[in-house]
């Protein structure tokens, strides 16, 4: 059993607060992904778990044991570094065997574990080579191999795929997910790539400016973001944010964005009634816009008119950069749409999937 628990962990570098009062509970065998923009404290959090960084305050537990004062070597963790950190003076075999030799395992056992890991990762033929004789992808595998031979309770990955090309990254993503099923170990994985986070995680933890913004399964975070930051960070292209006003007319609520007026679904009402007449931020994901021609549910209450500024075909879908009044919007529409740049288009909003945010607290209203 290897739960990893952070209780009110704070890490300061002089005045810089890299990690700000973070509490996280990662279950045994979970694939937890820490995600956030550059400089938000992901690496620092991971390094604190590894014991490479002493925390300023708070407690870290690994497998129910308080590890604040335990050095990295006794924490029973393995870490894969962003630039791999392979020992340049050792061949691949010895890179992988180093940790096992330190633990004084018998030679046969070391051989067997290295062989096994090499097979899993497809690097049996490289065992005699030095790191500088390997390609980036091969080095990455060796770095993972060095972690798995140790059979630790917890694996820590710090952006292990960020130095690979796009194709290899997709392949390795799948392999690491497979590896997780196979190893049955707790994995904490750091990335700033939200696609990696969405596809690999059993739970994602979104950080910003050292603070935990939201934690939950990827789809839940996507569907119900806790605040403006999460809503904007998860999803690609990012959610459209439209500053607008909430109106009540004939016991129905409307979003008034000056250039358009749409009627909100009735299940929003209980949470939004206190915002009547006030400023709100209306959030719509690009994928929740539809071309009226191919979407039969369009009515006067959920359709807006906009001018097409740019068209970016992605293959099965097309991105439309629209201008509606003074609001610039991005919509992901059906590829059958035959409108051209400069023309007007009618798009339907899938209103039950939209969100409202408080412009001051930036919290989600609904």
């Amino acid at each position, binding site marked *: 059993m290897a739960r990893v628990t952070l209780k009110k962990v704070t890490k300061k570098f002089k005045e810089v607060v890299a990690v700000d009062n973070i509490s996280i509970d990662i279950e045994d065998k979970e694939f937890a992904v820490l995600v956030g923009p550059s400089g938000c404290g992901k690496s620092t959090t991971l390094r604190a778990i590894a014991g*490479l960084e002493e925390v300023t305050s708070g407690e870290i537990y690994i497998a129910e044991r308080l590890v604040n004062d335990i050095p990295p070597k006794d924490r029973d963790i393995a870490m894969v*570094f962003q630039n791999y*950190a392979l*020992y340049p003076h050792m061949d691949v075999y010895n890179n992988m065997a180093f940790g096992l030799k*330190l633990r004084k395992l018998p030679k046969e056992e070391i051989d067997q574990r290295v062989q096994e890991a090499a097979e899993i990762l497809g690097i049996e033929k490289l065992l005699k080579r030095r790191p500088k004789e390997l390609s980036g992808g091969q080095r990455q595998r060796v770095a993972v191999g*060095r972690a798995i031979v140790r059979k630790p309770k917890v694996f820590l990955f710090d952006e292990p795929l960020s130095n690979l090309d796009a194709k290899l990254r997709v392949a390795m993503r799948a392999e690491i997910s497979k590896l997780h099923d196979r190893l049955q170990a707790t994995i904490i994985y750091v990335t700033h790539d939200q696609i990696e986070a969405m596809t690999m995680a059993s739970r994602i933890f979104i950080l910003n400016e050292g603070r935990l913004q939201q934690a939950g399964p990827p789809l839940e975070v996507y569907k119900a973001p806790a605040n403006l930051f999460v809503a904007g960070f998860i999803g690609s292209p990012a959610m459209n944010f439209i500053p607008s006003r909430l109106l009540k007319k004939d016991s129905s609520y409307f979003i008034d964005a000056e250039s358009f007026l749409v009627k909100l679904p009735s299940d929003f009402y209980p949470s939004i009634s206190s915002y009547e007449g006030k400023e709100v931020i209306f959030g719509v994901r690009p994928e929740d816009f539809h071309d009226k021609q191919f979407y039969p549910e369009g009515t006067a209450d959920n359709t807006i008119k906009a001018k097409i500024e740019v068209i970016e075909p992605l293959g099965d879908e097309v991105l439309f950069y629209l201008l509606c009044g003074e609001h610039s919007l991005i919509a992901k529409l059906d590829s059958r749409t035959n409108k051209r740049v400069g023309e007007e288009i009618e798009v339907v909003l899938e209103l039950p999937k939209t969100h409202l945010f408080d412009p001051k607290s930036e919290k989600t209203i609904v």
Partner: protein
Amino acid sequence: MRTHWFTPWLYVIPALATLVFFLIYPSFNTLVISFFGPQSEKLVGFANYIYCFTNEIMLSAFRNNLLWVALFVPLTVFLGLILAVILDRVRYESLVKSIIFMPMAISFVGAGVIWKFVYSYRPTGSAQIGILNAFLTFLGRQPIPWLIERPWINNICLIIVGIWIWTGFCLVVLSASYKGIPRELLEAARVDGANEYRIFWKITLPLMKPTVAVVATTMFINVLKVFDIVYVMTNGAFSTEVIANRMYKEMFIFRNYGRASAIASLLLLFIIPMIIINVQRFREQEAFR
């Protein structure tokens, strides 16, 4: 453009000519003179070399140089290495490093004078002006004639001065090499289960090996040429003679050009292998980058 076979030579010849004129020719001439008598007036064959290997003072000079090699080289390199690793964790690193490097900035003659005061000795009963003996008498002990007590104490006292001067140099070069090791490698080793001691032997030292070798061979060459410290502090008295000081005496005091040249040729002979190793290591280090 067509290049002739001699084009590269045109570029090299000025440097080569200078080298031949100021280095190769004098070395060769020294070698020739070493087979002649005191004033180069008649050929004496190997007589000067036989003198080098039979004369008692020459033999003691060889022995002392060996002692210098055995103590000075390992200690400067080892101290430099340990300090480089330890000081990396100290807040006032650059200040401490500058202080340790300071002796390099003093002329070696100056350093000799400073340490002559440290080791100064007056017979028992009179006031001791040397700090070491002042301390000993303060403790109620007999003062020690540091630079006279033969053969170990006085030689070791001289070697300590050499170490004092050169450790700073080793420290600075080795520290630069240590800082060139990516921090992540040491962190990876830490996570892999290594303690600091293991990290030093298994990761740090192997990665610094080319630099350590260059520093060690440089120190070796230094030690073979050691002269100023001995000249200033004892001038070879009380069995503290070293090869270079002997060469100086033969040349400028006894005016025996033959013997001086023989000693110079021997020194050159000892140093050549070290220079070859040094150049090779240097290439290796470049390849490592």
